């Protein structure tokens, strides 16, 4: 209890610093507005919002303010995806895909205002649940992480890539793993981290410093989105918003158990390395369908169904920041973009991170969720108008935005060539149903894996004993092996046989 109170006191200090600084509100209101706009426009994603703002803010304003801008956009974009889901039956972001299942039927039944109001409230409470978990668990894990050395770090990085590849694949799991390996391979370009041996530079001096994170992020997330979105789509009819958006206390009280449960699920899924808000939304929706009394109404206009996914995807934000801040492993694709911003500012997330940064992140998330809540309830009409802008109009402007953002991060014109190259590759990977998130996580964690794996071998003179003799490493090694084995057809058949035998 004393620990929780001391955490809350630290959080109070960080919050006071933020609320007494007028600039906080400038960045917060702008970024949450931009985030909701990005989320509300079908074709733009939360990852793209954070990525583009990373290019713009990460190294141009002090880190304290750039964190406000990036986290505000992150919170806003995940929530903003609910607008087109409810009013157009088109998910604004992948995270809101499950929301459309119940949100649109509700809006069609004339309950659009109620749906939007409850979604706003659920997203707000969900973000707070995730943020509270971040405040408490990050410290517990930070204490544990003091015992994490090179073998555990290497295996954790591998686990992040493997898990992301496994869970983010829409088609074959093997494609997720290949995407992760491509990302790892990209991270090998440049001087190696231990001996400064040049690798795969092909005589080009630009390549000596390796692939920079921001152009890779822009290429992986923005360019394919632009190529895919530049097609004529018959604009969907935005349903008229009927009823009051501000929800009643009775409704909030009634759905509070659903919101609470989904918040916990979303936080838990978010804490898994490399797994994003879309997975959180679907998992929570699936659980909700199973445990809810109105499970049979899911997909036909159930408020519980709507809140299950919407609470979870926002709660996922706090969860996704736990592995990022404690271990330096992003919990979701937007968190990967945040990690890029940290790296540009020479901040290495992990056990050595400055505790003040964590407290500030928590305070920003709380303020961002309040801003989102107020904007959602009182300025919804603006965002509904934004829904009507066709993507063939805003995507060219996003292209110009991406270009100047990527250029100004530092690498100049070569970064733009890299962005374009990665963009074309990522577009074809999307086409072939390879997930992009494992690739990006591979690029970000590749250097950490390389360095810590070889350091582990160096300590033990080439022996693999450190990966087995250390309890933490042994557990992680087992988890990694089990994760791989669980996808091997022979093992799957074996499990089915055992299940059949004992069923």
């Amino acid at each position, binding site marked *: 209890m004393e620990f929780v109170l001391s955490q809350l006191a630290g959080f109070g200090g960080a919050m006071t610093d933020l609320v007494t600084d007028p600039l906080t509100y400038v960045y917060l209101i702008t970024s949450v507005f931009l985030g909701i706009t990005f989320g509300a426009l079908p074709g733009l994603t939360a990852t793209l919002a954070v990525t583009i703002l990373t290019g713009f803010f990460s190294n141009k304003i002090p880190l304290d303010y750039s964190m406000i801008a990036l986290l505000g956009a992150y919170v806003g974009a995940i929530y903003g995806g609910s607008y087109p889901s409810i009013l157009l039956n088109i998910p604004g972001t992948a995270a809101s895909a499950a929301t459309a299942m119940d949100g649109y039927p509700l809006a069609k039944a004339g309950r659009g205002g109620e749906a939007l109001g409850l979604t706003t409230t659920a997203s707000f409470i969900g973000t707070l649940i995730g943020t509270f978990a971040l405040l408490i668990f990050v410290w517990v894990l930070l204490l544990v992480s003091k015992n994490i050395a090179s073998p555990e770090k290497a295996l954790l990085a591998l686990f992040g890539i493997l898990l992301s590849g496994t869970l983010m694949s829409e088609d074959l799991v093997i494609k997720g793993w290949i995407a992760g390996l491509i990302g790892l391979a990209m991270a090998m370009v440049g001087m*190696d981290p231990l001996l400064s041996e040049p690798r795969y530079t092909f005589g080009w001096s630009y390549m000596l410093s390796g692939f920079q994170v921001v152009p890779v992020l822009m290429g992986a997330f923005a360019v394919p989105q*632009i*190529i895919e979105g530049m097609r004529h789509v018959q604009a969907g009819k935005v349903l008229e918003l009927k009823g009051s958006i501000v929800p009643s206390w009775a409704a909030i009280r009634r759905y509070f158990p659903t919101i609470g449960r989904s918040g916990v699920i979303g936080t838990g899924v978010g804490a898994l390395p490399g797994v994003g808000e879309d997975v959180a939304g679907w998992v929570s929706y699936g659980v909700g369908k199973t445990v809810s009394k109105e499970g049979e109404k899911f997909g036909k206009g159930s408020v519980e169904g709507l809140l299950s996914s919407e609470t979870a995807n926002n709660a996922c934000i706090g969860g996704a920041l736990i592995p990022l801040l404690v271990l330096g492993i992003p919990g979701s694709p937007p968190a990967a973009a945040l990690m890029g911003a940290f790296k540009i500012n020479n901040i290495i997330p992990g056990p050595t991170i400055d505790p003040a940064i964590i407290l500030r992140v928590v305070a920003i998330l709380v303020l961002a969720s309040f801003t989102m809540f107020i904007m959602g309830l009182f300025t919804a009409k603006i965002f509904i108008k934004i829904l009507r802008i066709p993507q063939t109009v805003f995507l060219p402007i996003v292209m110009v935005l991406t270009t100047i953002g990527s250029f100004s991060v530092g690498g100049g014109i070569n970064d733009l060539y890299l962005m374009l190259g990665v963009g074309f590759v990522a577009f074809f990977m999307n086409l072939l149903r390879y997930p992009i998130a494992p690739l990006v996580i591979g690029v970000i964690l590749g250097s950490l894996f390389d360095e810590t794996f070889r350091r582990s071998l160096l300590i033990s*003179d080439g022996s693999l004993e450190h990966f087995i003799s250390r309890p933490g490493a042994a557990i992680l090694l087992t988890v990694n092996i089990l994760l791989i084995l669980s996808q091997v057809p022979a093992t799957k058949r074996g499990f089915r046989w055992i299940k059949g035998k004992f069923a």
Partner: protein
Amino acid sequence: MDQPDNIAVLRTRDFWTSLVLIVLSLFFLWKTTDIPLFGENRAGVSGVDWYNSAALVPLGIFSSMLILSFVLLGISIKAGGAQRALSMIGIGWDKAEALRFTTIGLTLIGYIVGLVPRVDFIIGGALIVTAMIYGYRGGHTNRMITSAIFVFAAGLYAFTAHTPQSEWNAHDDDWVALALWAILTAIVLIQGKGDAFARKLPIIAVLAPTILVCAMAFGFRQNVPARGGLIFKQIEYQYYVTLKPLWSQK
């Protein structure tokens, strides 16, 4: 996409992809042999043990990729991907989609490779915004081709006329891009008679890159592409000579 036919197309694509991945894995495994693995001497200094070599992790990565590529090849062959591999159905792209991708590809290449480093950012930005909105808004094939030709031609001229970096500040490519933007804008306005958005397009096309480049250069004080560009050079001059002294006089 989960219909059986679509799965069949996907497996056919997987067949080709796995072959490409096998070739790439083998190529990079061969390139990895350039990195000393067993402690060779470098410039008279003895190298390190194999377990600390810079080649160790890349070898693991590309070997794993090679194995997974063979597994993917096996999956695609089992699903009939190899049988359909040489038929047109297997490629999965129709003519319209191929054209759409080609035009966007040419537009982006023309913009990033040709225009951004050499041509004024406002002119280049206005050209690509106008071209992309005009080309893809209504889904007209002819417009897609026209818009791609305009951007690619401007980019190609800038690239061929001023390839070395020392010539990037020349202004003839700026004028060519500006003329092409003016012609394209005229086409947009003529074809879009009565369309309120067509009238707004030139304003959006100029304002968006102008605001972005000015915010980046004067607000965030960051490097921007083509600093010596035709229009931006004038803006920068007026900003530092006329405007800035108004609020920074000591």
